[in-house]
């Protein structure tokens, strides 16, 4: 059963969200979804880029002005 885990990176500057995402994904199983909450515009670029390069499925949603949620499905 795939689970969904939320990772709170609000207020964290680059590269902290990326490193936290990396560590959190390691602990998840295939098919699990990690929801990363960020409000740093640069993390919006490098976290999805890194995750897509790793082959994960990534979806970005702007939930509020300057706040995003990244849905990363581990592959």
């Amino acid at each position: 059963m795939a689970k969904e885990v939320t990772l709170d990176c609000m207020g964290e500057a680059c590269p902290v969200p990326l490193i936290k995402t990396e560590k959190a994904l390691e602990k998840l199983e295939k098919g699990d979804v990690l929801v990363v909450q960020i409000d740093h515009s640069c993390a919006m670029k490098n976290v999805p880029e890194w995750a897509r390069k790793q082959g994960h499925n990534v979806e970005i949603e702007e939930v509020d002005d300057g706040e995003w949620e990244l849905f990363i499905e581990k592959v």
Partner: protein
Amino acid sequence: MSAETTGITSRPSQARRKKKKKNQLPVAFALLLAVVGVAIWLTFVGDNLALFWITGIAFGIILQRSRFCFTACLRDPYLTGSTSVTKAVLIAFAVTSIGFTAIKYGFAAQGLPIPGQSYVAPISAATAIGAFMFGIGMVIAGGCASGTLMRVGEGFWMQALALFFFVVGSLLGAHNYGWWERNFIVSAPRIFLPDVFGWLGGLLCNLAIIAVVYWIAHKWGKRKTQEL
């Protein structure tokens, strides 16, 4: 595994209860009018001020929209193996080299004093040590000078702290610069490439170095992606 060690919290996903975003267009329009208004006012205040105002704002917009980041260009190759920003910065350097050479050559060809020659700074160990320290600082602060300014403008308040100490450091540096210059910097050589290789040679030398670094960045990025 506790939430403390994983950094994973149970903060509920916001997407489910999506709230309506405020329409920012009226603010954008008012701001645009203000920018144009100030530009018109500046043309009466002094030469070039309006030009500086517009280029400054254009620079900020490009920096923000493109996520152009000098910190990421040096950090990401280690951290993620991504060299896309590195290559973007190198292209910017190449364009800048050509532009500056053209401007400087234009003045030199007419026998006029070349502008900006005071920025041909002496190269000493101070350059390398200072650059190294700056590198550590900018990775911890999450941005270099332009990046920090841009993100504070975006409303990312944690970096206002970085901005504050950036100002403190700059003031201290400016205050003590005379001492450093007398004791460490002034004896070092000043090298202006066109003096050594000629105008075209200097430019080609610059572009060749950039091309080599670009090639290394490209290879590095490819290798790192294949490893994953």
